[in-house]
């Protein structure tokens, strides 16, 4: 085990510092969105009915998929500490598979919801006099869509970092940095999941 | 030389007073700052090697004059806030009993002024609508329901020192009491598209008898 000692600013690896800063920035972006959603949610009680149309089971499975992927990333980091390339490859590929599973389940959900008429401009709902409620779906698609983009970005980052590391046999600290970003993607979902799916 | 347009409302004078109060204090402060800047600039021009002090400005004692400056400004600041508070409450936060009630509705690019019909109530079937003509009785509190159909507009009455944005989906009630008869401009102060520059209305302040006549004329139409 490494000895834990307090690092001065200068001893923190650059990549780690940069990713932490990036994560802070991302949290403000999602934070803004989430606060806006909560304020709207408190104002319009009828949004709860809309939330019942989401697929809670799919959401729950997705949460587990992401949590599992976070475990894989931790394992990949552990492998990176020991500079074990085969292990790194294995665990990161598993993470990327999880990312694809997440996206697959998400697109199944989207298809399902669109087929039920909960589309983005919400013409259907507005025609029924549910203009206010149609904006629940605006938030739903915007927040989950933006999160989905982050999943893709995180998976791409992991993939490229893995390729770089296995090819050049250096930059092992980048696995940790990309992993940190992946954890953030995971944590944001943990905020979004109850807010969107569970509160009726 | 006139700085402000003629004041014609009950609270306009107080707004002007706040301006002159702040300007007065700021003028004194400006003189001090100008002196502080010009004195070294004029007297320390030449090369005076080694006569200057090695001052780093650390600790309360060395910074005491700056703290004094901040303190003075803080006193001035809170004096302004103390003075303006009641006026703000009066104009924005309270609504005196109304003597007349209209709705001003902005739309691209004109003002619709909605007068209550003969029943004296707004938002009933007999309301009368006028475009860009805002009649109002002198020396009476007029409530204005400020609304918008499409984009954000802003009701700006320079002579009353009054301004309020009109937002779609909201009704904002504010009041004005004109103290002079005559016609005054009302313009839109928030950019609202190509016709923004042409969006203006006329306020016609009449004495109470004339205003009654105007109202009956409006109802006949």
């Amino acid at each position, binding site marked *: 085990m490494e000895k834990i000692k307090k690092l001065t600013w200068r001893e923190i690896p650059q990549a780690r510092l940069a990713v932490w800063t990036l994560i802070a*920035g991302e949290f403000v*972006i999602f934070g803004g969105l989430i606060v806006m959603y909560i304020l709207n949610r408190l104002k319009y009680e009828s949004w709860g009915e809309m939330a019942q149309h989401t697929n809670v089971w799919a959401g729950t499975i997705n949460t587990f998929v992401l949590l599992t992927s976070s475990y894989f990333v931790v394992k990949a980091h552990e492998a990176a500490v020991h500079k074990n390339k085969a292990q790194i490859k294995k665990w990161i590929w598993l993470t990327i598979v999880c990312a694809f599973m997440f996206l697959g389940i998400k697109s199944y959900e989207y298809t399902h919801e669109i087929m039920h008429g909960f589309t983005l401009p919400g013409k259907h709902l507005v025609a029924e006099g549910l203009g206010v409620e149609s904006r629940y779906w605006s938030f739903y698609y915007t927040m989950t869509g933006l999160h989905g983009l982050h999943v893709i970005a995180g998976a791409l980052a992991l993939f490229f970092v893995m390729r770089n590391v296995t090819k050049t046999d250096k930059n092992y600290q980048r696995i940790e940095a990309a992993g940190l970003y992946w954890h953030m993607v995971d944590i944001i979902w943990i905020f979004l999941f109850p807010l969107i799916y569970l509160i009726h | 030389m006139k700085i402000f347009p003629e004041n014609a409302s009950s609270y306009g004078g107080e*707004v002007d007073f706040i301006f002159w109060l702040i300007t007065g204090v700021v003028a004194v402060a400006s003189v001090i*700052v100008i002196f502080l800047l010009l004195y070294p600039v004029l007297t320390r*021009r030449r090369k005076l090697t080694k006569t200057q002090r090695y001052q780093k400005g650390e600790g309360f004692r060395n910074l005491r004059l*700056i703290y004094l400056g901040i303190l003075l400004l803080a006193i001035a*600041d809170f004096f302004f806030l103390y003075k303006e508070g009641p006026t703000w409450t009066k104009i924005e936060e309270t609504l005196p009993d109304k003597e007349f009630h209209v709705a001003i509705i902005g739309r691209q690019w004109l003002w619709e002024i909605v007068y209550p019909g003969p029943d004296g109530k707004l938002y009933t079937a007999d309301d009368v609508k006028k475009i860009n003509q805002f009649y109002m009785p002198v020396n009476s509190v007029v409530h204005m329901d400020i609304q918008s159909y499409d984009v954000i507009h802003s009701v700006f009455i320079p002579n009353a020192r009054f301004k309020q944005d009109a937002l779609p989906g909201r009704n904002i009630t504010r009041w004005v009491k004109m103290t002079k008869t005559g016609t005054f401009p009302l313009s839109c102060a928030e950019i609202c598209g190509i016709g*923004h520059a042409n969006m203006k209305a006329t306020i016609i302040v009449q004495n109470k008898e004339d205003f009654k006549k105007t109202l009956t004329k409006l109802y006949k139409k």
Partner: protein
Amino acid sequence: MNTHKKHGFWHRYFFSLDHKDIGFQYMLTIFFMVSIGGFFAYVFRMHLAFPDMKVPLFGLVTNKDYNMLITNHGLIMMMWLALGMLLAVAGNFLIPIMIGTDDMAFPKLNKISYWIFLLSVILMIASFFMPKGGLGVGWTLYPPLSVGDFGYNTPYKSFADRFFTANTFVLLAIAFEFTSLLMGGINFFVTTLNKRAKGMSLLKMPMVVWMINIANLLFMFSVGPLVAGTFMLLLDINVGTGFYDAYRGGDPLLWEHLFWFFGHPEVYVILLPPLGILAEIISVNSRKPLFGYKFILTLTLIAAVLSTMVWAHHQFVAGIDPRAATVFSIFTIIISLPFAGIILAYIATLWKGDLRFTLPMKWALGAVALFTLLGGFTGLHLGASVFDIYAHDTSFVVAHFHYTLFPTVIFGSFAAIYFWFSKFSGRKLNQTLGNLHFWLTFIFFNGFAFPLFLLGLAGQHRRIADYRQFEFLMQDPLPLYRKIATISAVILILSQFIFLFNFIWSLKRGKKETEDNPWQANTLEWQTSSPPPHGNFKVYPVVNYGPYEYNRPDKDKDFTPQNEI
């Protein structure tokens, strides 16, 4: 240490990884943007003073043109000039060399940031040529106007109709610019924390490095919600999500809050780097330590925190709760205190100093004077919510923010350019032309902005293409004020050509800079050759002294470089 190689044009201006080259790329791009913004200003000022005239080089200005001109003038100057110049250019040129290192922490990220910046510039320019013309909704982009006729209630428009509009392109440009600055900001932050020269503790960093980093962090914190907001506005335009659509329960005020939650801290994001630049220049040219280094730093941090709590003073009469407005009014007026302290500390640096009236010093003093006397003090007028009822959205506001932004952004940038030009180019700027440029700019800036105060007090509201429809605004002497403002603005813009000529000419043919340290300054960038080699230092400096040790009693010469032993 890298060896210096001669690079070709493409390498230097497009693919370079060197922070100085990337800074230069940013600077040229921004000069290009400013010339567009300045040209727009010239056109609409001419139109205001002489409404029937065909403006030379443009033609007759219609209301639509006018709206488009003012909108894009504002956007370009705020987003690309001010933010770009003071975060990207100043950060790139100054941070690595002033903290005594070879380059940024992530040179490739730095290059990519510039490319994204360039992309945002291209998108912005492209927005002028959309089928329906440029964007004309005011630079604050308030919906529903900025959603245009794409709201839910209008007949269906195809996606192409919605996408190929100025609205979409401007928002995309802004989003990309923010991305670029965020990436740059992360880079600056990591560089500053991680790559400082040996011995340079945080409190031995030059003030400008501190200020740029504080500005960056403030930017990163405040821009997040607006990034989300921009995304939502884009979706409103292109997909009809209705976030800001009042008829579906959305709220146009939401955008105002998001915009100003970024927009007001942004003013301080813009203000802090020039304040840092002024600190360097004033201290060097007074031959005295900066008065109250820690004091200034503390006040800056206080101001940065306070600045996130004042945003709604842009919305006193926008329909927010009047009781909330009182709170914001108090915070707004309180934020004058830290800045008063900073300005007084700068003035204290001058006192008992040994002033040298070099060109950068003139710009710096001009900036301090104008910013304090006419920019800062009129902020008190506007911060007092009662007077803001009248002055909101009038020319008084326009004059106020030109007096705050012009001295800081423009004067500050010029001060920096005249100060550091010889270091980064190895040649000197022509001093005669520089003096002429300074005095013309100083005089005609006042000639342009001061009449706007008087016009605003007379009740002239903003963004009006033609004031002749308002009789009370055509009474004497208001048209005369408008003409004075216009003629001054035109001369102001013309006098920038002196600078442009001086800049380009001196870059190629200017007198060679023979000294490494012509100003006898302490900070590390002056302790290497001019221009610095690739990698900045032949030998990495080791820092022993603070950045402002002028006239130390224990030294013979009146300056003590930071790396002196």
